[in-house]
Each structure stands twice: as structure tokens, then as C-alpha cells.
């Protein structure tokens, strides 16, 4: 008997047993669809997080004080030392921020807000430079001690009752600042939620704000932001920054850093660990679905063993050879897993796209996931399709006919 005949026999047999075929296929469909749907969403979520982090600005390194007996350690001098020409070759730009939580007034309105003094390049460095209206202040404004302010969108709304604040002024610690710009709401870039923040130039801030001080009485930087020259130099930049700051702070060999460095790539890594964990979690759920689907397939196959063994007995009694039986059953399983696989795949894609729509993320369906899902279900389908046939084909026809 040739392969075409075996194929025809397999199709006839499937057609004659539609219910059994459908139920088997259902197991395969459920397994594959669940894996592809869930894994697609999980990996899509991972990419979403990564994109989010990358949108913050690439190659950024954040320097924070590690408090020393309660005193912060970073100073304006540290900022200059890091920015000094030719010293930190892997560092392209350095910006700083100081801050005080204080009362801000505009006319009869007043609000408690975080007032940040920032260097002129800070907005661009932290990707927080999109304006709703007006402009930003820059290094020149900073150097000239300009008394100007850029407002977050919420605080601008609160202080000016929704009116245009550009050209108006606000008062902070009895000092007047002209409002020159309002930032767009929402995306605070690397600084997080900044809609309620007030930004003034660093130099003015050092004079006018009541800042935390180091143990030597100098005003302390809340944070220094450095940008590595490019992606490949992030590690070099980290090294150089660390060396410079240790020198600045007169740390002896073996003493612990009194600051900490967090790089963007480090963040990406730790977040992708989180999303990997999530993918593994979803993968575990998916694996359970695979097993459930697999058990479904197994059940159908095993329940039909008696009938199928008798069928094999009949076929052998009228002259089927072993390979005829095996070819028929192998083809039956292949046809079922193929059709079930395609349907499961399509369903999984639909599930992940619909789910992705609800979660506003783009699902990522990797070949690995597809291979895993299809491979597992197909193996279960084929193994449990073939195994009883293989066993029954070894029996004498009379034993197969009597099987119950």
C-alpha cells in the first residue's frame, strides 16, 4: 500500500470519526493558542518596558549622594569636576539638580511645591524638554543668575487658574521669578512625575533656596546626571565618574563610595529581569494550558484505544500489514496536529492581539514560542496517536479483535 492510499485511509478514518478528531484537535488548539497568546503578551510587555526605559534618554548615569551621618555628599564642585574638559573623556554632558519643597505664590494663589534648581542642560539631558507653551532657560540664563521659572503643567494650572502664565511671575522664598515656559503634562522623562514641579536655574537656586548642606556646610546636589559619550562607553564613564568623585571627596583607598551610580543600562537590565520573570510566569500558565491540552489529547486517544485496537484487529484480519497500520495512524495524527496547530496558531495570534489591544501593548510572538507550543502539542498528539496503534499492531489479529 502506497503513501497516497495511507493518506486516503487516514482521511477516511478521520472523517468517519469526526467527534474524536475534533476533540483531539481541540486539545492541540487549546495548548497552542494558550501558549502563543500568553507568551506573546508577556514578551510584548517586556518590550514595552524596555521601550519606556529607552525613551527616557540613552546612556544616562544618575549620581546620588549616599548620606554620610545624615549629610548629603554631592556638591556643586563635584558637578564642575565631572564636567571639566579632558578629565572624564567618556562623559559627554553633566547636569545637576538641587531642590527644596516650599511655598510658591502667584497673585493670591499659593501652592506647596518642589522647586528644583537645574543646570541649563538638564531638560534636554533628561528628555523632559517638551513645552506646552513658552520656552526653557539655558546655560546663559543660568550663568547670568536670571530669575526665571519653568512650570510643570499641573502647578501652572493651579497657580494661574488655567490662565496663560507666560510673562506672569511667581514668588519663591520672597524672590520673584518670571514664568518663561510650561512643560507638557505626563511624561517627566528620567525625572518621573514632574507635573507639579517648578524649575529655576541652578545658580539662582543656590543663592535663594534653602538647601540641604553637606557636612562642610556647602549646598548639596540632589542628583547629578551624566551622559556617556555613547552606549559603548557607559562602563568607562561609570569608572571615570567614580574615580573623579572619590578624588573630590578625598576617599582613601579601600574606603567605601559615599555616592551611588545608577546607569540607564543597569535600569534596563533590572527591568528586563522583571519582565522576564513575568514572561516566565505567563509561560508557566501557558505550560499548564499545554499540559491540560495534552491530557485532553491523551484522554481522547486512550478512551478510544479499545475501539481502535479492534479496528486494527479487523484491518489486520483482512490483510493490513504492520506498516499499513502505522502509516495510517501516523498520518491521522499528523493531519490532526497540523490542522489543530494552524488553528491554534491563528487563535493564539488573535488572542494576543486582542489582549494586547486591551493592555495597549504590541504582542511579540517569537519563533521560539511557536516552536515550543507546536512542538509540544504535536509531540503529544503524535505520540498518543501512534503509541496505542504501535502496541496494537504488535498483537496477533485475534487478540486485537478480542481486546476490551
Amino acid at each position, binding site marked *: *500500500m*502506497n503513501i497516497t*492510499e495511507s493518506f486516503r*485511509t487516514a482521511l*477516511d478514518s478521520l472523517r*468517519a*470519526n469526526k467527534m474524536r478528531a475534533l476533540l483531539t484537535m481541540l486539545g492541540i488548539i487549546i495548548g497552542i493558542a494558550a501558549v502563543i497568546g500568553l507568551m506573546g503578551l508577556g514578551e510584548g510587555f517586556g518590550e514595552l518596558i524596555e521601550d519606556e526605559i529607552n525613551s527616557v534618554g540613552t546612556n544616562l548615569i544618575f549620581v546620588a549622594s549616599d548620606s554620610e551621618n545624615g549629610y548629603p555628599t554631592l556638591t556643586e564642585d563635584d558637578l564642575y569636576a565631572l564636567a571639566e574638559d579632558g578629565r572624564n573623556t567618556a562623559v559627554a554632558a553633566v547636569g545637576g539638580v538641587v531642590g527644596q519643597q516650599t511655598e510658591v505664590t502667584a497673585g493670591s494663589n499659593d501652592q506647596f511645591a518642589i522647586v528644583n534648581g537645574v543646570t541649563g542642560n538638564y531638560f534636554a539631558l533628561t528628555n523632559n524638554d517638551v513645552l506646552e507653551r513658552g520656552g526653557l532657560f539655558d546655560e546663559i540664563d543660568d550663568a547670568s543668575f536670571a530669575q526665571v521659572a519653568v512650570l510643570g503643567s499641573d502647578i501652572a494650572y493651579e497657580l494661574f487658574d488655567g490662565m496663560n502664565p507666560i510673562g506672569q511671575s511667581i514668588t519663591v522664598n520672597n524672590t520673584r521669578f518670571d514664568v518663561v515656559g510650561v512643560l507638557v503634562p505626563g511624561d517627566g522623562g528620567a525625572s518621573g512625575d514632574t507635573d507639579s514641579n517648578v524649575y529655576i536655574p541652578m545658580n539662582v537656586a543656590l543663592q535663594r533656596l534653602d538647601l540641604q548642606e553637606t557636612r562642610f556646610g556647602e549646598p548639596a546636589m540632589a542628583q547629578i546626571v551624566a551622559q556617556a559619550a555613547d552606549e559603548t562607553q557607559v562602563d568607562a564613564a561609570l569608572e571615570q565618574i567614580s574615580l573623579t568623585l572619590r578624588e573630590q571627596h578625598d576617599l582613601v583607598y579601600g574606603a567605601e563610595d559615599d555616592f551611588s551610580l545608577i546607569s540607564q543600562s543597569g535600569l534596563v537590565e533590572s527591568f528586563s529581569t522583571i519582565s522576564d520573570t513575568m514572561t516566565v510566569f505567563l509561560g508557566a500558565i501557558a505550560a499548564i494550558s499545554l499540559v491540560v491540552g495534552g491530557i485532553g489529547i491523551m484522554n481522547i486517544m486512550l478512551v478510544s484505544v479499545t*475501539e481502535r485496537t*479492534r*479496528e486494527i*484487529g*479487523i*484491518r*489486520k*484480519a*483482512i*490483510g*493490513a*500489514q*504492520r506498516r*499499513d497500520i502505522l502509516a495510517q495512524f501516523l498520518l491521522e495524527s499528523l493531519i490532526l496536529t497540523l490542522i489543530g496547530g494552524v488553528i491554534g496558531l491563528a487563535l493564539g495570534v488573535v488572542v494576543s492581539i486582542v489582549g494586547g489591544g486591551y493592555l495597549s501593548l504590541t504582542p511579540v510572538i517569537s519563533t521560539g514560542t511557536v516552536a515550543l507550543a507546536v512542538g509540544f502539542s504535536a509531540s503529544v498528539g503524535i505520540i498518543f496517536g501512534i503509541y496505542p496503534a504501535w502496541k496494537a499492531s504488535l498483537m*496477533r*489479529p*485475534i*487478540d486485537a*479483535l478480542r481486546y476490551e
Partner: protein
Amino acid sequence: MIELTNITKTYQMGETQVHALRGIDLTITQGEFVAIIGTSGSGKSTLMNIIGCLDIPTSGDYVLNGENASQLDDDAQARIRNREIGFIFQRFNLLARTTAVRQVSMPLMYSGIGTTERENRAVAALTSVGLGERVDHKPDELSGGQQQRVAIARALVTEPSLLLADEPTGALDSVSGEEVLQIFERLHAEGKTIVMVTHDMDVANRAKRIIRLRDGMIVNDYQVHQPVAPFDTTDSNVVIHNLEETA
């Protein structure tokens, strides 16, 4: 055409051995119509299954059409079953949810005959057993007698030299049974070799030769000259005056 020499069949049931056949010597020639009778458990089915190459003997030789069938491997036996033997079972053994014409054409598929010829021959075989109108019926759409006739058509379609039937009328009412027997008689008239197992003396008497088994041995083997009245088949010691011993 059939030559059994000292055939035994022993089943191992845990500790105990069941001797289903204990040394059968039997020759059946081309064109004979033989009935095998005997009490339940006497080994009739076991013998038939060995003759039909559905089972192998524990010892002894079985030569079918000059070929030693007891020494063949599984696939070679399958070929013999396909070409030389048509087997009819008490319980039909049709495939579920499969049309009559497919059932009947299946043996031809296993002997490598093309679809069109297969179909034609299957329809012809079904027509010859009076089921020309029922070719597209599935087993659950046929009566018991019709199912058995499908099984006969399936056994005949390959034009085997030997037709074996294990209680072919056992599951049928008398009318359906009679139809089956008439088909057998016609086939016998056409020259087919037929071996049939039965419990029913009336059925056995339709054959030309009767072999009686008891406890796995042949105790009687005689030609039927004319039909006899029914008698107690469980008592193999009944002396049958109007039959002539041949063994």
C-alpha cells in the same frame, strides 16, 4: 489445500495451562464444505483462527496451499489472510461508521488494487449477497443479517480460495441465518472451499462434511449424506446411524 499435522494450542493462564487444542490432524481438500461442531470450549474457534492465520499454533504444522503457514512472520501471514482467506466472524467485525462499499473494498486496498477497480468489485460483491441497494449504508443503518452479508462480501471480494466462518449464523435470526447459508451453498456449488463452525446441528447439516471436536481433539469426522433431524449436540456420544464415518 489445508493440511494440519499434530496441531496444538496451549494458553498460559497464570499458573495453569489451558490446552485448547491437543494434536489435531486434519486435511481439507479444494472445494469441500466442512462444518466444525462441538461443545462450547471444545476448541472450534481456536482451530478456525489457526486455519485463518489469525493466530499461530503452539506446535504442529499447518500447510496451506503448499505453503507452511505456521512458520511465517506477521506480514507474510497478513498477505495470506489478504489473498487466500476470507474470514467471517460471529459478530461481523465491521468498522464502525464506515459505509458498506468501503468496508468491502478495504481488503482490495491492502492488496494494492486501484480505487476504481476496488469500488467496482466491492459493489459487485455486495450485489452478489443481495445488498446492491445498500452500498452506502453504515453498520448501524443495517440489520444484523445485512451486516453479516456485508462481512461475507468483504470476505469474498478478494476471491480467496478459502472461506472461513466462525458461527456465521450465531448472532442472526433464522431467516437471516437461512440467507447466509444459501449464499454458502451457492459458493460451494461454485467451487469455493468453505469451513464453518457452528453450534447448530441444522446448520452443520447443510455442509458436506462434519468434524466434531471435544476437549481440543477431533472425535468424529464424517460425510453428510442427507440432512438429519436435530439432536442433542452437547452429547457427542450419540451414535449417528445414518452417517458414515470417514476418519
